[in-house]
């Protein structure tokens, strides 16, 4: 009997280790002679540095050295690399690892102390004197492009970083022939990373041995290796980057940070390992966030609610520097037709610099914003035409018979955005059924009779997942019969080990427990891309599948020779190759591995190379498009403005599920992140660019006590784009959540005529809208 792992709820291989306190996160590591670093960070959002006096800090007992930009020397005096150059970047600003002469956001690294302990290093940081000439700061994207606005960088003439546009179909025609044109403008605010493990890294330089090694809490060790080696002007072969256990990533750990240059450099200067662990205040000030985006859209539609076109303008906050190219604004535009067959779109983005921490993707990147925008316009059409929002969606979905459906949008890398498979309307119906949408009106009326305000909101999304080009896997059977599996993809909790072990185990005929899994170490696997954009299952999945298939084929070919049987009669089960119908004839995979490369070096069987090993870079031939519909049911307390999500229902389709338990966890976690965006998470700067929200008493992450139970149902429409039929699942919960919650709030407050133009929807804002609506009703 062949054991089936794919599709089974296999308990995670990672867990026993993590449950017993035996994970290995960066700060859990220690090394002989290791020193500790702490950074002095800019206390002004924008200032010239006149002078830095480190003498008092350097004299503190326990301090080894203090470094500023100048102390790094001319060889290391240049700005950081632009990781994703793009023609639309008109002003290319990356930062210096340590500020040279100008700071452009509060939290920018200005100097660093190396000491015997972190505490001493912090003592010394307080003794560094910086003479700043404070410059005006630009903080608000809505006036950043006005004449006379303060400039985010002293040597530029405008805060415009660049412009992008997504344009397809005949937009003028769409608006010309529309029965109705409706407009809506709204601000979207997405918070920060807030992985429970902050960033952190250890650098070690061994010029006569291993070279430069950086252990870092990151999503993309290969990108960091490339960036670090390039910045240093040294060969990648001499730079090793390792992501050990990582306590959450969510996007902001996918980039390359100043500290990831400075810490290895300090190790080089000090000739000792150096550790830096970001503390939570630093995380608030120096880890990239997503922040503000303003949308002003018009929708053209028929009287029946059929949408003909969408046009408008987006203002996107970039922050002070460009750590991540234009990925964020780009991914805001690409989902623009959403789940709907909208023939014409013309939306442009102004990307503006502000004196705030650089912006980067956070779970979903720009997709939650793009989808929110489309869903808002669906709500606008529904409200103005008096058609049920679910019905407006039904009338506009891309239909299964239209697949593959080319939207007209362009994905990152220039590929056309093509919806590969899915039945969006069927998903909606499943979500509505799960949410008992039909019974809601009765629930709402019953509650209203008690003076309570219930509302329901729907949203649908598509998500381009699994972007290529590859994420390879090596599978090797070793003499013990255990199977070594290596890949570049770093895990921040997604369960890659389990997922890949299931794929390899099933294909190779071994148990997942026999898999020895290693990942995210550039010294152990030659190349990788990174864990971003819900891409790992759709890329590592196929490569693991393919590599295991190749190993299986090789094992069977060799076993056929050894057992003198036909390959067609062989099967592998529990690590043993057996001849069907001849149970005594068998050989283990370990024995086959020994035959290929005997320790006593006799000979390799003719026609074979020495290892029972294969490497594959098979992936997805395009971006599989996952999809989902969500229904939120909320209660609003009109006395306080509090919103409680009572019930949340998800129907989701990420293609074939490798491990439904893990998919479920990704969806639920993603939804809660999205509810956090909709209701809670807000990073506030004052008008001087000082971050005011720098602790977890004030930055409100979603807690168990406020979050609803999330009911999830799945459809499995296989993607035609890869061998497993899988699509990504990591962000599908987050992307549609804010739109569903906001629509539900408006629905609850229909009698007040509440229209929400900002999220997170906080109670004060909401009571303002309620009071205004009540006053208007009273007139």
């Amino acid at each position, binding site marked *: 009997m062949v054991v089936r792992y794919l599709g089974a709820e296999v308990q995670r291989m990672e867990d026993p280790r993590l449950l017993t306190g035996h994970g290995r996160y960066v700060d859990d590591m220690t090394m002989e002679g290791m020193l500790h670093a702490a950074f002095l960070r800019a206390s002004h959002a924008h200032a010239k540095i006149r002078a830095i006096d480190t003498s008092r800090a350097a004299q503190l007992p326990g301090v080894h050295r203090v470094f500023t930009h100048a102390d790094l020397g001319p060889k290391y005096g240049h700005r950081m690399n632009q990781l994703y150059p793009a023609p639309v970047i008109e002003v290319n600003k990356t930062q210096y690892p340590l500020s040279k002469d100008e700071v452009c956001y509060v939290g920018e690294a200005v100097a660093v102390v190396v000491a015997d302990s972190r505490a001493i290093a912090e003592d010394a940081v307080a003794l560094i004197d910086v003479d700043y000439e404070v410059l005006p700061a630009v903080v608000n994207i809505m006036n950043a492009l006005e004449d006379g606005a303060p400039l985010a960088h002293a040597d530029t003439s405008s805060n415009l970083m660049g412009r992008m546009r997504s344009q397809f179909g005949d937009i003028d025609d769409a608006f010309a022939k529309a029965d109705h044109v409706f407009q809506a403008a709204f601000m979207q605010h997405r918070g920060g990373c807030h992985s429970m493990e902050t960033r952190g890294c250890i650098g070690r330089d061994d010029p006569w041995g291993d070279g430069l090694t950086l252990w870092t809490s990151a999503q993309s060790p290969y990108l960091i290796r490339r960036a670090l080696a390039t910045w240093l002007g040294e060969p990648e072969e001499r730079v090793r980057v390792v992501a050990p256990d990582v306590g959450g990533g969510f996007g902001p750990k996918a980039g390359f940070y100043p500290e990831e240059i400075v810490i290895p450099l300090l190790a080089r200067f000090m000739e000792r390992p150096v550790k830096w662990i970001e503390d*939570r205040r630093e995380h608030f000030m120096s880890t990239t966030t997503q922040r503000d985006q303003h949308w002003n859209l018009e929708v053209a539609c028929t009287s029946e609610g059929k949408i003909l076109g969408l046009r408008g303008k987006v203002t996107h906050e970039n922050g002070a520097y460009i750590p991540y190219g234009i990925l964020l604004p780009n991914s805001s535009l690409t989902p623009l037709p959403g789940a709907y067959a909208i023939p014409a779109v013309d939306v442009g983005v102004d990307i503006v610099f502000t004196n705030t921490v650089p912006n980067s993707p956070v779970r979903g990147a720009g997709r939650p914003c793009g989808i929110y925008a489309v869903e808002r316009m669906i709500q606008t059409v529904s409200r103005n035409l008096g058609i049920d929002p679910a019905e407006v969606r039904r009338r506009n979905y891309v239909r299964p018979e239209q697949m593959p459906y080319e939207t007209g949008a362009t994905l990152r890398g220039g590929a056309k955005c093509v919806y590969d498979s899915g039945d969006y309307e069927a998903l909606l119906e499943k979500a509505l059924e799960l949410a008992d949408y039909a019974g809601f009106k009765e629930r709402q009326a019953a509650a209203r009779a008690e003076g309570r305000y219930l509302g329901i909101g729907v949203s649908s999304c598509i998500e381009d997942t699994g972007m290529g080009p590859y994420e390879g896997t090596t599978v090797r059977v070793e003499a013990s019969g255990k199977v070594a599996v290596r890949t570049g993809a770093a895990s921040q909790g997604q369960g890659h080990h389990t997922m890949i072990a299931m794929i390899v185990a099933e294909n190779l005929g071994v148990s997942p427990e026999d898999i020895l899994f290693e990942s995210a170490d550039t010294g152990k696997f030659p190349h990788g891309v990174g864990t971003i954009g819900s891409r790992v299952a759709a890329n590592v999945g196929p490569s693991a599948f393919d590599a295991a298939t190749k190993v299986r084929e090789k094992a069977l070919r060799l076993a056929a020779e050894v057992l003198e049987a036909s390959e067609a009669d062989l099967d592998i089960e529990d690590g043993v190759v057996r001849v069907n119908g001849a149970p005594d004839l068998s050989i283990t995979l370990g024995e086959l591995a020994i035959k290929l490369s005997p320790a006593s070096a006799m000979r390799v069987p003719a026609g074979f190379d020495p290892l029972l090993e294969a490497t594959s870079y098979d992936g997805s031939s395009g971006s599989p498009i996952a999809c989902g519909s969500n229904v939120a049911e909320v209660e609003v307390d009109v006395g306080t403005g509090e919103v409680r999500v009572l019930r949340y229902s998800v129907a989701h389709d990420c293609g074939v599920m490798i491990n439904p338990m893990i998919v479920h966890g990704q969806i639920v976690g993603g939804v809660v992140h999205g509810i956090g965006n909709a209701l809670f998470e807000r990073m506030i700067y004052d008008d001087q660019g000082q971050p005011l*929200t720098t602790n977890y008493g*004030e930055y409100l992450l979603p807690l168990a006590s406020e979050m609803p139970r999330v009911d999830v149902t799945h459809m499995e429409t296989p993607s035609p784009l890869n061998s497993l039929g899988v699509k990504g699942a990591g962000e599908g919960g987050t992307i549609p959540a804010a739109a569903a919650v906001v629509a539900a709030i408006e629905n609850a407050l229909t009698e007040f005529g509440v229209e929400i133009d900002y999220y997170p929807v906080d*109670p004060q804002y909401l*009571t303002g809208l309620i009071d205004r609506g009540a006053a208007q009703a009273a007139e």
Partner: protein
Amino acid sequence: MKPAPFTYHDPTSADEVVALLGRHEDAKLLAGGQSLMPMLNMRFVVPDHVIDLNGVAGLAGVRDAGDALELGAMTRQRDLMADAAIAAKAPIVPEALDWVGHFQTRNRGTIGGSLCHLDPAAELPCLMAAYDAVLKVQGPDGVREVPFAEWPLAYMMPSLGPDEVLTGIRVPHWPDSHGHGFVEFARRHGDFAIVSVAALLTVEGGKIARAAIAIGGADVRPIRLEAAEAALVGAAPSPDAFRAAGETARGIEAMSDAYVTSAYRQRLAATLVERALIRAAERANGGA
């Protein structure tokens, strides 16, 4: 985020604490540590000396003194919640403590620490304001008593001299028939209150005989809604009376911060005063 260096002291008596305070100019008292430790870790507070009260004998415990509850300043919030005398005599205390942080922080946090830290949003100062509690403060010249109304001097600044320590709190009894209501609005469970309200009522012969309404979180110190209290006395407990009491809260002094305006706090106070009074009236015996 490590504290700056300090010298640690672990005295065993209140006299010793006062003596240490007298000797060391820049000293902070460490009670449960649930407010001070974050400030030390973040280096907002950088004292030369930390004097730990956890080893000081006689500062913890609850005693029913007949006309009042005597609470030791170092009594943990967890122990206040579980205490039978408090549950019988002042059931609003455990109701309010459910809003104070989380069970892990209540395992360490103390009533005295909270009253001395005097965060405007803290629940315990609001309760003590409702009760007109009396605080016992020991200094070099002995013990003095401070009515709660005179305790907060300014933002997070109690009437506590640099060489004084809070040793106990006296919470006067209300009649067993009294009703109580503690309501709060915070964004999430355990968060700082945006506004909290403590209400105590007695009802005799269908009329309100006595009322205390304290509002926390709105201003730099708890506010007593004295005019509304006076207006309620003699009135029948009714939705209209409670709504009217709530409306008076729209006129309180309230602060703005980076998150909410004073106007929103006033609006919330109106809602919550009404709700707290309704709850208190429901629980008061002698109504009908």
